[in-house]
C-alpha cells in the first residue's frame, strides 16, 4: 500500500516511475527503516523539509547494500511525482545545496532532454562542496558541479541507471538548444588574445591590457626561447640555414644570456658536424658499393656470384667505414646496436611476466583476462 505509485501519476518512459530504479535496489529501499519511518505519507511540502535535513549524497553502501536517505527521498519523489514547477524550485533554491542536488537528480531521471540541459547546466557554476558516501561506507569530498557533470556525462550514478538523453550537439542542430555558453568564456577569450599578442610582438600597445607586457625583457626572452626551440626541431631538415640564422640573431641581440645559448648552440653544431660527416661518408660508401655491385653483376651471371659479391662488398665497406671514422661515430653505432637489443629483451620479459603465452590455452586466456583487469598472472 505504501509502496504503490500515486494512481494519478503519469508513466515515465513507458513504465511506472518507480521502475526507473532497479528491482534489487528498490526492494532494499522498501526494507529500509528511513523509508518506513520518515518517508511514510510525505507530500511535496513535507518532502522539502526532509530534504533540507539531508547531509550527504550517495548510492547503496556496505555489505548489505543499504540505501542512503538521499536515495530514499529520490524514490519518494518518483512515487509522488511532484510537478515540474516544484522541481525547478528545488533546483533554483540557493540556500540548501542538497535540496538543489536532489531536484537536479530527479529532473535528470524524469525530465525531457532539453529540460535536463537547460536546468542542469547553470548548476555548473555552483562550486560548493558535497559529502558523498562511497559503496565501502566511507565519505569522500565532491562538488556540486562535479556531480552535475557526472549526471550529464555518465549513465550510472548513485546506483541508479540514468536514462539516455540526446547529446548536446544533436539538440543544437535541431535548434532546440543554443550552443553552450560558459561563464568562463570571457576569461578564455582574454587568455587567447594575450597569447596572440605575444606571438606577434610588434603591436605597440594595441590593447590597453598589454601595455605592461609589450616590451618587457622577460617576455622577449620567452619569445626567443620559443623560436629557438622550433629551430632546434627543424635542425635535421635545415641545418645549414640554421647555422646562418643563429649567427645573425646573435649579432642582433647581444644580451647576457646569449653566451649560454651560444655555448649550447656550438656544442650542438659540433655534434651536427660529426653527424654530417658520418652521413656524407656513408653516402659515399653506399655509392661505391652500388657501382661495384653493378660491375660485378655484369661480369657474373650466377645468383650465387651476385650474393657473394654483395656480402663481400658489404663486409669490405664495413671495414673501411670502421677504419675511416673517428671515435664518436663508433659510439654512435654501438649505441644503436645496444638500443636495438634492449627493446627486444624488454618485449620478451614483458611477455613472460604477463603469462599470456602460456602453453595451456585456457591458462593463457585466463591470464589475458587477468592482465586486462590489472591482476597478476596465475601461478
Amino acid at each position: 500500500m505504501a509502496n504503490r505509485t500515486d494512481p494519478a501519476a503519469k508513466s515515465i518512459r513507458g513504465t511506472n516511475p518507480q521502475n526507473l530504479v532497479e528491482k534489487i535496489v528498490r526492494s532494499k529501499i522498501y526494507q529500509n527503516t528511513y523509508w518506513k519511518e520518515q518517508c511514510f505519507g510525505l507530500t511535496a511540502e513535507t518532502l522539502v523539509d526532509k530534504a533540507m535535513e539531508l547531509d550527504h549524497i550517495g548510492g547503496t553502501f556496505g555489505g548489505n547494500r543499504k540505501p542512503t536517505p538521499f536515495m530514499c527521498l529520490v524514490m519518494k519523489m518518483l512515487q509522488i511525482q511532484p510537478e515540474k514547477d516544484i522541481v525547478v524550485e528545488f533546483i533554483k533554491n540557493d540556500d540548501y545545496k542538497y535540496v538543489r542536488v536532489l531536484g537536479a537528480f530527479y529532473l535528470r531521471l524524469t525530465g525531457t532532454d532539453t529540460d535536463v540541459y537547460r536546468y542542469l547546466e547553470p548548476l555548473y557554476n555552483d562550486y560548493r562542496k558535497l559529502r558523498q558516501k562511497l559503496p565501502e561506507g566511507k565519505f569522500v569530498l565532491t562538488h556540486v558541479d562535479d556531480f552535475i557533470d557526472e549526471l550529464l556525462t555518465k549513465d550510472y550514478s548513485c546506483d541508479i541507471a540514468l536514462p539516455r538523453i540526446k547529446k548536446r550537439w544533436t539538440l543544437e542542430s535541431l535548434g532546440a538548444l543554443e550552443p553552450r555558453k560558459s561563464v568562463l568564456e570571457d576569461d578564455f577569450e582574454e587568455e587567447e588574445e594575450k597569447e596572440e599578442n605575444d606571438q606577434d610582438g610588434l603591436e605597440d600597445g594595441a590593447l590597453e591590457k598589454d601595455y605592461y607586457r609589450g616590451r618587457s625583457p622577460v617576455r622577449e626572452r620567452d619569445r626567443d626561447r620559443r623560436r629557438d626551440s622550433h629551430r632546434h626541431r627543424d635542425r635535421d631538415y635545415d641545418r645549414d640555414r640554421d647555422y646562418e640564422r643563429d649567427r645573425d640573431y646573435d649579432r642582433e641581440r647581444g644580451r647576457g644570456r646569449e653566451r649560454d645559448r651560444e655555448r649550447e648552440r656550438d656544442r650542438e653544431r659540433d655534434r651536427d658536424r660529426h653527424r654530417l660527416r658520418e652521413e656524407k661518408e656513408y653516402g659515399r660508401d653506399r655509392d661505391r658499393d652500388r657501382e661495384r655491385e653493378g660491375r660485378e653483376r655484369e661480369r657474373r651471371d650466377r645468383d650465387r656470384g651476385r650474393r657473394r659479391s654483395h656480402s663481400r662488398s658489404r663486409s669490405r665497406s664495413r671495414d673501411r667505414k670502421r677504419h675511416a671514422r673517428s671515435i664518436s661515430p663508433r659510439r654512435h653505432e654501438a649505441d644503436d646496436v645496444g638500443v636495438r637489443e634492449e627493446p627486444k629483451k624488454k618485449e620478451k620479459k614483458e611477455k613472460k611476466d604477463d603469462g599470456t603465452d602460456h602453453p595451456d590455452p585456457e591458462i593463457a586466456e585466463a591470464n589475458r583476462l587477468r592482465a586486462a583487469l590489472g591482476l597478476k598472472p596465475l601461478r
Partner: protein
Amino acid sequence: MIEVVLTDSLRKKVRVKCNDDDTIGDLKKQVAAQTGTSADKIRIQKWSNIYKDHITLKDYEIHDGMSLELHYN
C-alpha cells in the same frame, strides 16, 4: 593456482581460475567479466557468511574446487 566454482540461485555456474593470494574483490572482477554483470553488483557468500572484498582467498581457506554462492545486490 586454484579453480573456484560459483553457483547462482538460478543454477548458473561460473568457473574461475585464480591465485590463492587474490582478494575476493579480484575474484568478483573476474566473475563480472565472465558473467557480464558489474563487479559491485555481485555478492559472494557461503551460507550466510558474506565474503568481504579486501580479504584474500587463502585467509578464507578457499581451496581448489570449492564452490561458492553467487548473489546479486
